[in-house]
């Protein structure tokens, strides 16, 4: 899988309450959730995000509430990949389960600035900053997780009998 897009950059401990505030949890409609994505952290996000864009963030991205509405809102807003220094564990598994690509790479986060164009080749674990020309290596997903992603998420994996 390859991803390419413009980077929108955030800091440490971005919690799911700012990704999608609870006042919008009375719906599970993807487009409606996307229209409020990041609202309490960055009101400009929804106006400037473009299909394929990449979020980079610091440590503990997605901490707090288990709401799957958070990765759903990010995915539905057009974001193709989230690169963070680390992810909170529930957000991490939710992203895998719904098929939002995420990767931990502290070096890339430090070396990428807001607005840079970035390409990520996840088959080979390489992140390229097209603006600066720098390259960063990442660890591949464990096989079991790779299988879930390849099958388009956990639901498909069960529906197709890959997980019983």
């Amino acid at each position, binding site marked *: 899988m390859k991803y390419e897009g413009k980077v929108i950059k955030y800091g440490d*401990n971005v919690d799911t*309450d*700012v990704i999608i505030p*609870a006042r919008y949890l*009375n719906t599970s409609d993807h487009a409606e959730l996307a229209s409020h994505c990041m609202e309490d952290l960055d009101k400009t996000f929804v106006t400037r995000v473009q299909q394929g864009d990449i979020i980079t963030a610091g440590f503990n991205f997605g901490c707090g*509430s288990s709401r799957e509405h958070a990765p759903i809102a990010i995915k539905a807003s057009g974001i193709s990949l989230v690169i963070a220094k680390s992810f909170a564990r*529930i957000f991490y598994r939710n992203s895998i389960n719904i098929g939002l690509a995420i990767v931990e790479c502290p070096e890339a986060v430090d070396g990428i600035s807001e607005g840079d164009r970035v390409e990520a080749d996840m088959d080979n674990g390489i992140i390229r900053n097209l603006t600066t020309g720098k390259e960063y290596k990442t660890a591949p997903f464990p096989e079991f997780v790779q299988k879930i992603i390849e099958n388009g*998420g956990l639901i498909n994996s069960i529906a197709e009998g890959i*997980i019983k």
Partner: protein
Amino acid sequence: MGMTMTQKILASHAGLETVQAGQLILANLDLVLGNDITSPVAIKEFSKLNKEGVFDKDKVTMVMDHFAPNKDIKAAEQCKMCRDFCGEKEVTHFYDVGKMGIEHALLPEQGLVTAGNVVIGADSHTCTYGALGAFSTGVGSTDMACGMAIGKAWFKVPSAIKFNLMGKLRKYVSGKDVILHIIGKIGVDGALYRSMEFTGEGLSSLSMSDRLCIANMAIEAGAKNGIFEVDDITLEYIKAHGAKEPAVYKADEDAVYDEVIDINLSEIEPTVSFPHLPENAKTFNEISDIKINQVVIGSCTNGRLEDLQEAAEIMKGKQCADGVRVIIIPATQQIYLDAMEQGLLKIFIESGAVVSTPTCGPCLGGHMGILAKGERAVATTNRNFVGRMGHVESEVYLASPAVAAASAITGKISSPWEVMNYEV
């Protein structure tokens, strides 16, 4: 190599002799939980699986607690979707208004969890049941859907931090102060992906209420789960609440821990976590006069009977400060009834507080006590993130029921030791 408590429970539920940290396993589930916010997403996903029913009607539970009693039409539609699903699939443990309480106070009270269980819940505070010696952890709606369908979930076996508790808590100091102190020490990602295992001679002085509160906030340190060693206090609680036969797992003598942290309970002081992260823990020697607009005593963290008793002891015969709205939320119908019979509700109402029906309500900025721009609340809840209880420019200070009650009386963030003239 020895295993931790968590590793032993996971091994037994994956049909394996042993497991190691980092190993990916598929574990059998004893209970799958959802609420009125996360279940609708799970129900939609479940419908894609073409399964007629859930894996076990007695092992799925839904609790209508977050935006219930329905705060608006959309919330009403979400609850209806859960109600219809549980009716159609004949789910035994569906808790609607009248029977519901805040999920993590309700399930242990109703005896749905016992020691040695593996529980997943589409709610991050599902880690609460670790207080009963169970492995329980928060997941998302897709995991919930798959759990309902096949009774299994995938896990990466966690490593652990051991918390060796010693000593005994002082008066007006409770489990909340302990966990805020710990999160202040290790940070909001201090236990990321790992278990927090609580053991040591200090355990015997902690009530189940204290333990449930501590395990509840393990997620606020990033942990996968918090778990307490099972003792007579746990077993008595499990028996009293009619839960299934407990299976007691003790960590091996040679279990490997990433870290061992000693916590002397005798040294813990009333503690407050400042906005906007639970790790911003301070004690009263570091706190100046901070005026407040609202106090909330309730939530899955601190809405239990002991919490209300502690608050009532401090508020009895006193008046809430002018300009402070004090909202008390018993976490379940049983707690509400017990608090009424013990005269606690009378104490609260006479002091100028309001008493609400059980709901998560203000904790997540849903309803029943939302903050305006610039307002400040002291709350016994679990998160003080930006905008958590309302406006993005409002502030939440996390504290124990004793600190919240003392603050309600003075109108500023106050120590119960000072308000009650308690000599330390």
